[in-house]
């Protein structure tokens, strides 16, 4: 009898759990630190057409590959003033992550690299310790009729004091990568 009574109690309690289960839908999470967009705007010294490089990946860690666009072509042997914009366009209005990076500029640094010696880059800004950040940079293009890859990397918590890091050499920088995009550019 006792066993039957216990089974009845058990069924009763299980049904209470069933009754009070939470049927509310979960809230959607819009990722706060998601970076969807990297945009580099390059303005030639002494006037001319600007070049815009853009990589957009709206599904973040989702399976879709970033869409990479290069608007414009580079002139040979020309210095371009570059500005980087890092955005989260999954939010509306888009969140400007560049501002957060500049707020914590001692902990961030961009690195630029090129294949086929198509160009070189130098820093044009500094954090409060006098080390480069890379949101503002200068790009000097190489010879005409060449093409190659231009890679922009953002490192979080790099060791800015390590050898050659302040000249833009990533080898000893450590830290973790927050952004890494490669643009195929052409110099006409």
């Amino acid at each position: 009898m006792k066993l039957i009574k216990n089974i009845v109690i058990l069924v009763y309690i299980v049904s209470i759990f069933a009754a009070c289960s939470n049927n509310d839908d979960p809230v959607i999470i819009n990722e706060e630190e998601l970076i969807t967009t990297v945009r580099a705007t390059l303005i030639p010294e002494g006037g001319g057409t600007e070049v815009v490089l853009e990589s957009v990946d709206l599904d973040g860690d989702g399976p879709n590959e970033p869409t990479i666009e290069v608007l414009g072509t580079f002139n040979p042997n020309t210095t371009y003033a570059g500005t980087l914009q890092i955005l989260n366009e999954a939010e509306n209005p888009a969140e400007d992550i560049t501002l957060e990076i500049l707020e914590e500029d001692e902990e961030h640094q961009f690195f630029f690299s090129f294949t086929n010696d198509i160009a070189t880059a130098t820093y044009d800004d500094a954090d409060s310790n006098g080390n480069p950040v890379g949101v503002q940079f200068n790009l000097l293009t190489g010879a005409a009729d060449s093409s190659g890859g231009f890679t922009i990397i953002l490192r979080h918590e790099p060791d800015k004091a390590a050898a050659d890091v302040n000249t833009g050499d990533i080898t000893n920088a450590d830290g973790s990568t927050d952004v890494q995009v490669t643009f195929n550019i052409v110099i006409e």
Partner: protein
Amino acid sequence: MINGMHSSRVILMTNGVRLQDQEWGIEHAPNIDINTAEKITVIKGANALEFGGDAIGGVIVVEPNRIIVKDSLYGKSILTGQTNGRGFSMHSSISKSTKEGYYVNAKTTFKKYGDFESPNYILTNTGLNSEAFSVQTGLKKFESGFNLYYTYVKNEIGILKSSHIGNIEDLINAINSDASLIVNDFSYAINSPKQEVMHQLVKGDFYKRFKKLGKLTVQYDFQNNKRFEFDIRVGDDRNKPAIDLNLNSHSLSTNFEFNSKSNQTYKVGLVGAYQNNFANPNTGVRRLIPDYSKYDFGLFTIGNFILDDNTRLDLGVRYDFNYINAKKFYYKSRWDERSYDVEFNDLIIGDFNTQWLVNPEFTYHNISASVGVFHRLNSENSFNFNYALANRSPNPSELFSDGLHHSAARIELGDLRTPQETANRIATSYYFQNTNTNISVALFFNHIRNFIYIEPTGTEQTIRGAFPVWDYKSTTANLFGVDVNWKQKITNRINFNNKTSFIKGRDVGNGRNLIDIPAANTQNTVGYTNKKWHHFNANLESNFVFKQNLFPNNNFEVFIPTTNSNVLLDLSSTPSSYHLLNFNTDATFKVSQKTNVTIGLTVTNILNTNYRSYLNRLRYFADDLGRNYVLQLKFKY
């Protein structure tokens, strides 16, 4: 780890309660205070069915000390200090019991460790803070009794800083580097990445014996598990966890043991359980594990029979019903990439721009069974044989994982189509025992249909660069293993012990070796004991772990844009063999009639050997622990 099985394939019972924490990954250590355990046993036969039908590996039963029914008051304190991690732990327990059968006991443990050290460098951010408390009371009489139990465990665990990886290029750099990439000075500070886990458990049980019939037990338990994982984040989110899960589990069970006949006992039981997981949306990071509710119902019967003086038989069968109801957001792109749009579009309940809200509901029916026989051939030789059928429903991470697991730097993808695992296991052991020699040889063969595993399958490109993708898959697997344990008394004071184990795992479905099978190892110990010298013990232990040569090759080439080259990403190669030498000694001194002190000294990894272990996820990033001196003082009063 039991016979190559861990995590969801092993049930952990602590003080009669099935531990319900987020035990999905190999890196998630169980949330128990090991100091509260007086006895740890592994059950694999029919009697394991009482605890669950899904224990493909087995059941680990952690039991507290027995209650003595007499007027008594006693306590125990253990103080431990160690050089590696420059840490200490303190454990105290006190028990009071009366001859009427009432008892109460309380236990508490504190631990604090700083950064641990490998032989050559500090393992930055690997400290640990732990606090645990438990109290138990009850009445223990022959005819009836009850127990009430409460326990609280909180662990704050640092995660090796150099294991925090930005993208696949960082991962390749880390794997190809011999040393850990981030080494700072020793510190007790635990920074991100880290985990904070709180586990609380309340249990009440009641039993009553009926003359010429048996014993009835009813038990209810409630567990709350809170898990926070902190990642390295920027700006305002710096101190916000990236994972914030709250898991509540209720369980009500009852069983009746028919034990009126001396040569046979039967046990029948029922269990009902409800579990709810809530993933806090305030993390600002997409949920790795979704919100879900889970209902389980189980029914079992076990019989133990003494056939004659030398033969025992055990039989058991169990049915489990599992129902899971989850609500989860998927990127529409992921939904299509997984081909869920072909089979599961009817699960969609909401459209949120780039994401779907879906409501998967899955039901599983599982049958498990076991039959075992033990036979004594003569006073020295005996053997047993066991066959077990076990079914395990996929866990939430195997079904629902979706996205970047930041602390592991990999994209983990579950599969809604994952079926339940079915294991057919046969095992046999042979025992030889005389006054000087004690040998056991155990063999097992386990055939698992739909064996669920995770392996690297490729890369996916994000704005942060490429990440390795680890997919949950299922296959047919065969596991075979041998365990040998040989104890030999050489003289009255000197003894020798050899423990050797070997496991081979085959992925039959894909015609290759199975991933994550522990390497063969052999452990040899020479011990000396002398009771006249204050119960003096000394043991020198040699532990040799072979290289695991049988592993699937999941390596692939990755294009590195910065160097414009293809580089091999070697996630598969196994670490070299290694040999560790350990030593421990202890002696017990009587301080007064009721008080004695045991002093123990342990040295692990005496030779300060550099090694990495195949099943340690951190093996890609740093060497394992170096030499460690541990001094322990144990007071009993």
